[in-house]
């Protein structure tokens, strides 16, 4: 390569000041476009039903909490608490079950010979690729036979199976950051599994465990298909409750938006709080 003069170099590579300003502006425009539907959802949730359904949109309409009052059953008397509690129960219990199964499994996979590890890891991942809908009917018939239709504990088991492969892959990647000598030393010392868990793994991978728990919680909280098919009035979850908010007559936009905000709030809060770990989790630990 021939040497190039300093001014020529400044003109290439990094964009100049004007290009930079333009790109910054573009980045902001993109950001605003992506967040706009979320912002609109929040704003609409704070409008009255009549102000929510205008064309052009009434941006400056007076704010009201009526939408949220409706969400809490002001006129219908249908409380959102049972479905919210069902969702929380299903998400929290399934996440705990997943962690109890995934952490020992990931530990075993981290100290085992490579060949077998691959097979097991790929078995877990392959279950994630099988379309859940294909197993839905037998699960439904099975639940019917056993009388566990509309039972939140059945959802806990299914959500655990839905998230376990993700959790094993994630925990494996977090454990890969622990020096293998430490794990092997613990294994050779003959420390019992609970001791190894408590003394070595949990302290050394607690941020990873938190990230894994968060992702499992989000996926369980969001799930609709299983909940819709396998639950009814008793064990219905928040997403199922939300689909019931749309009525064929009358205005419902503000209260649907209020419900959408209320139900998304735990996920938004958890996701923003753990932005940094989100990538590693979502990529099953392949991206650090």
């Amino acid at each position: 390569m021939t040497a190039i003069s300093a001014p020529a170099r400044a003109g290439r590579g990094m964009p100049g000041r004007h290009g930079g300003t333009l790109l910054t502006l573009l980045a902001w425009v993109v950001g605003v476009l992506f967040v706009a539907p979320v912002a609109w959802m929040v704003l609409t949730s704070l409008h009255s039903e009549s102000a929510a359904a205008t064309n052009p949109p009434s941006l400056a309409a007076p704010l009201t909490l009526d939408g949220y009052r409706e969400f809490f059953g002001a006129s219908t008397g249908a409380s959102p608490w049972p479905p919210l509690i069902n969702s929380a129960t299903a998400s929290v219990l399934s996440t705990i079950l997943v962690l109890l199964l995934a952490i020992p499994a990931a530990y075993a996979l981290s100290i085992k010979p490579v060949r077998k590890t691959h097979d097991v890891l790929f078995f877990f991942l392959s279950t994630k690729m099988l379309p859940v809908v294909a197993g839905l009917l037998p699960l439904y018939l099975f639940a019917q036979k056993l009388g566990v239709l509309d039972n939140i504990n059945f959802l806990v088991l299914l959500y655990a199976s839905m998230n376990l492969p993700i959790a094993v892959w994630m925990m494996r990647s977090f454990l890969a950051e622990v020096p293998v000598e430490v794990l092997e030393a613990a294994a050779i010392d003959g420390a019992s599994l609970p001791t190894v868990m408590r003394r070595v793994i949990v302290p050394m991978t607690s941020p990873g465990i938190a990230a894994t728990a968060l992702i499992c919680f989000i996926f369980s909280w969001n799930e609709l298909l299983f909940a819709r098919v396998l639950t009814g009035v008793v064990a219905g979850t928040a997403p199922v409750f939300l689909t019931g908010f749309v009525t064929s007559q009358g205005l419902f936009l503000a209260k649907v938006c209020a419900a959408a905000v209320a139900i998304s709030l735990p996920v938004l809060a958890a996701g923003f709080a753990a932005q940094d770990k989100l990538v590693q989790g979502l990529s099953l630990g392949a991206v650090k």
Partner: protein
Amino acid sequence: MPLLPALVFMIAVTQAPFLATLVISFMRWNALYPDDIGFAGLSNFATVLTDPALRSSVWTTVLLTVVVVLVSLLLGLAIALLLDRSFRGRGVVRTMVIAPFLVVPVAAALVWKHALLNPEYGLINGVLTWLWRVLGLGAAPQPDWVSTLPLISVEAALIWQWTPFMMLILLAGLSSRPTDVVEAATVDGANAWAVFRYLTLPHLRRYLELGALLGSIYIVQNFDAVFTITSGGLGTANLPYTIYQTFFAAHDYGQASAAGVIVVIATIVIANFALRTVSSLLKEEGR
């Protein structure tokens, strides 16, 4: 053997139902005729494979998945490149772009259908009215988005939710790019395009593959958006929705299971290819 509980649990909860699906797919079993249950041979498969609705839903599933994954990847790449520079408010913009991914999917679908795409009071037509009024153009076009462009409406909502996912993975890829090589190339006179084409893109390849793979796993199975935005009407019924329908509306367990088995076989073919991708990534990673 600390691995055993997880393995046993996984086999019991995920593999047993698929075996049951396989058995039921060979049976004559309609919930409306509980006295007429028996062996049906391959007739369910024959019915399902010759059913035009199912064949069209196979095509819809492929189209939906490919369009959503490709567009989200390209948009995600563009946004990741925009955010890979330091500028004022970078963290804020990043948070703004991530927000769509953190809205509960069924809530996002409801908001798209009613608050954005509704022909009378949706935000998009509202902005059109407002723009036309400001520009003095007279009556603004007010298309009924979901009726005229049903599949694109579903795709738009999904692309909006999945672009942040792709962006996050690609941004992580960009930040792991060795900066000294890029600097050396720039010093040697490579322009921005050449750096992107010959250094950045090859480095991002595994991240692009990973994003495409994970995105496909989730979008192939999408139920929420199709169920909420179009209820599977207007040619948007994908396989998960069609099977859900066969099972609920038609009560034909045998046919629903046969459809399920076909989906599983198709998925195994695709997954086999996908797993090979992950396997190669794993080998690169070392341990």
